[in-house]
């Protein structure tokens, strides 16, 4: 098996309470595009972090070019010509592209033949050459803070190339890109293969694998469950293996009973802090008993719509009406009292105060109301009583009951706490943004059941998700967003997954 450039033998990695990688053996050939497919939490990133030296495996061995790896550190991995583009870019915002690329291995020159100094000029040249060679189209003297996400990603790629990486690992590289940018990236990846590089692509998106990869390893719950040639395997087959169970599962969705419109969004536009329009002229309405889902690739304005409706982002034009009342200029609290519940995307920074107790977090929207607060004095016993009730009802698990500090709880239980709090508000309109992100299957099912239960109770539900499956399973009506605009709005049963996917890529009718 000497032709493998990377070989992993019986690699096992455990974290407290979880086996992230369980006895995984695989080989990657030089010059191929090798995909690593799996759901959230399947262990893809951990496995590649081991290859890149960020973790040491508990058991098993890693061989690079037939030689056993003894020391695990990113520096050593770089010496072995391995490079990795992380999901979160690691760039210095006030440095130029070149400065970022050479950081850590700066070329030197001597001023007046004596004083050593960083030779930025010659590095600029070298970076420009590299960029040209791989079709990356960057200007080496631009500053990172002036670049968009896709350009920043190219800088990360150049960083690897500059370090003469032969094995390049991409961790979910398309999650933050628009469809055109994805196309461009895939072309770059193909170009690198043509130049003899070995590429490892971590992803959970089947289309991409189908488009560029040669071979594909499928991980499910820490185990390697399949290895296939992409050309000869259908996406369906890959999907089934990835999920590790029947792909479609019955949710017990009741037939729809729509009532009057509850939430009306009319010609809404939103600008971000930098003054860019991120939501433009979006209109839709959500009826009682309806799940209106917004589908789209990340960063197309979905979160901003939710924030604008909830009052956390300023509306630049248009109106938002809730139960017949214009709330466009209302405060966050006024909207909540008017009947709006909101499960935000970022549960740790927005949805919870991590250093507060579970009880305090469960009361975050109610703390100022009677009986929890009478004449500005809080009644903690009422907090706790209500909290215990919610903990019971929503099966929130924690170490010390309602007195647990939320920071110490698991992600799934944190999310359950938010959902419990918001559903308890009994608001006629509920916004769910990415309600199941990063959760395990059990927790996902639990949350889906809650969403459907609220629908049955006649709530108007706005669901924003990046997971197309989730949308197809739950939605009554689907709106597809692209570049801040709703390209298509239609009843869910008139759309196929493929059609929605096309609109998400910006294809117009």
């Amino acid at each position: 098996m000497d032709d493998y450039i990377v070989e992993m033998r019986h690699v096992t990695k455990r974290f407290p309470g979880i086996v992230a990688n369980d006895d995984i053996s695989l080989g990657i050939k030089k010059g191929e595009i090798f995909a690593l497919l799996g759901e959230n939490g399947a262990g893809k990133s951990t496995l590649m972090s081991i290859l890149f030296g960020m973790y040491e495996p508990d058991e098993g061995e890693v061989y690079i070019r037939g030689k056993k790896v003894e020391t695990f550190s990113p520096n050593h991995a770089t010496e072995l010509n391995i490079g990795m583009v992380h999901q979160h870019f690691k760039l210095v915002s006030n440095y130029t592209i070149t400065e970022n690329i050479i950081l850590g291995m700066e070329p030197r020159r001597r001023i007046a033949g004596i004083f050593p100094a960083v030779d930025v000029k010659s590095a600029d040249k070298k970076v420009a050459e590299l960029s040209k060679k791989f079709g990356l189209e960057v200007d080496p003297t631009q500053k990172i803070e002036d670049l968009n996400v896709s350009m920043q990603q190219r800088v990360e790629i150049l960083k690897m190339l500059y370090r003469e990486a032969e094995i390049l690992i991409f961790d979910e590289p398309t999650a933050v890109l628009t469809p055109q940018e994805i196309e461009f990236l895939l072309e770059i990846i193909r170009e690198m293969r043509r130049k003899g590089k070995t590429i490892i692509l971590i992803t959970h998106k089947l289309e991409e694998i189908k488009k560029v990869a040669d071979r594909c390893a499928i991980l499910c719950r820490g185990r390697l469950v399949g290895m296939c040639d992409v050309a000869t395997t259908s996406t369906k087959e890959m999907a089934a293996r990835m999920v590790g169970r029947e792909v479609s599962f019955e949710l017990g969705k009741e037939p729809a009973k729509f009532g009057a419109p509850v939430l009306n969004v009319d010609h809404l536009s939103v600008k971000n802090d930098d003054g860019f329009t991120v939501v433009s002229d979006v209109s839709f309405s959500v009826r009682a008993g309806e799940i209106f889902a917004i589908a789209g690739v990340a960063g197309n304005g979905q979160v901003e719509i939710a924030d604008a409706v909830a009052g956390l982002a300023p509306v630049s034009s248009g109106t938002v009406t809730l139960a017949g009342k214009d709330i466009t200029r209302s405060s966050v609290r006024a909207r909540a009292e008017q009947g709006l519940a909101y499960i935000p995307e970022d549960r740790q920074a927005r949805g919870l105060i991590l250093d507060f107790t579970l009880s305090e977090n469960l009361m975050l929207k109610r703390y100022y109301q009677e009986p929890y607060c009478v004449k500005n004095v809080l009644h903690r016993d009422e907090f706790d009583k209500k909290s215990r009730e919610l903990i019971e009802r929503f099966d929130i698990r924690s170490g010390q009951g309602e007195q647990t500090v939320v920071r110490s709880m698991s992600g799934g239980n944190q999310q359950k706490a938010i959902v419990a709090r918001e559903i308890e508000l009994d608001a006629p309109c509920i916004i769910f943004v990415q309600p199941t992100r990063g959760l395990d299957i059990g927790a996902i099912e639990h949350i889906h059941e809650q969403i459907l239960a609220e629908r049955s109770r006649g709530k108007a539900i706005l669901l924003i998700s990046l997971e197309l499956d989730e949308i197809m399973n739950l939605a009554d009506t689907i709106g597809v967003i692209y570049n801040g605009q709703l390209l298509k709005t239609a009843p869910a049963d008139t759309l196929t997954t493929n059609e929605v996917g096309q609109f998400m890529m910006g294809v117009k009718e």
Partner: protein
Amino acid sequence: MTDIIVNGMAFSLPLFIIAVGGIYSERSGVTNLALEGFLGAGAFFGAVFVTLTSGLFAATSQLPMYLALIVAMLGGALYAVIHAVLCIKFKANQVISGVVVNILAMALTDFLTSQINSVALGQSSDKFVLTVSGRLTFEPLASIPVLGGFFTNVYPFEFVIIAVAVVAWYAMYKTRFGMRLRACGDNPYAVDAAGCNVARLQFTAVLISGALSGLGGMCFAYSVFGNYSTSIYTGYGYLAIAAMIFGNWKIPQTLGACLLFGFARSAGYVLVQKLGMPSTYSDLIMILPYALTLLLLVFFSKNNRAPRALGEIYDKGKR
């Protein structure tokens, strides 16, 4: 006019080198309110050195002063270890650490000053007497109208400061070390990913901060005060912080800020004198740097950008 320049330079330059110390620390991402403590501690070490070795040198020798400057730098760096350990190793809140380090510096040097005085010198005193440093006048340059002021009655340490500042500028903007250090203040995770040791870089930066502050403190001891006592803690460290912010955490701009502060101060004193106002009016002059900095922040806070990762506690495990 000459007076304004002479006194302005003598005040601006020590302030500047302390501010450069602040820049080193803060550009590496470590908030530094401890400059006040650093400059006092550094000057203390320098003064102790001068006092204990006074018998070894001829009374007219300038050598002890230069040695004292070096000792003050080493002493400042040594004392800065406390801030570095608290902020980087112990991950304490950097503002709190700065305040604590200042309080401790005053208590510690005060105690040691009187102890050393009584034990080593057998006298009861809370200060070390230094001579005010000699001054140099360069003829014929000094006779040039107006600009001659820059060559009249110059403290020798001013040249030391200029030399050190040039080295500090070069190290920060031209070398690998400086490039990595500045990157730490923006995104330490990027520096870590590039294979550099963030903690070590920040630690070094804080020590340099201590050394430069110590140098500045010693120069103040030799000029403004003429001795070492706890009166050295009059807030020049905080003034240096103001200059650093005014200078947008950049060395050349900070020099400008310090010169502005220094000249405004000396010009103010001259003005008060010339107009025959009571000396109390000079207190109004003293607020100039602070008021200017505050105004600048109010009107230009958009352009004024602190290092992005300033004050953030860098945790390698977090990604």
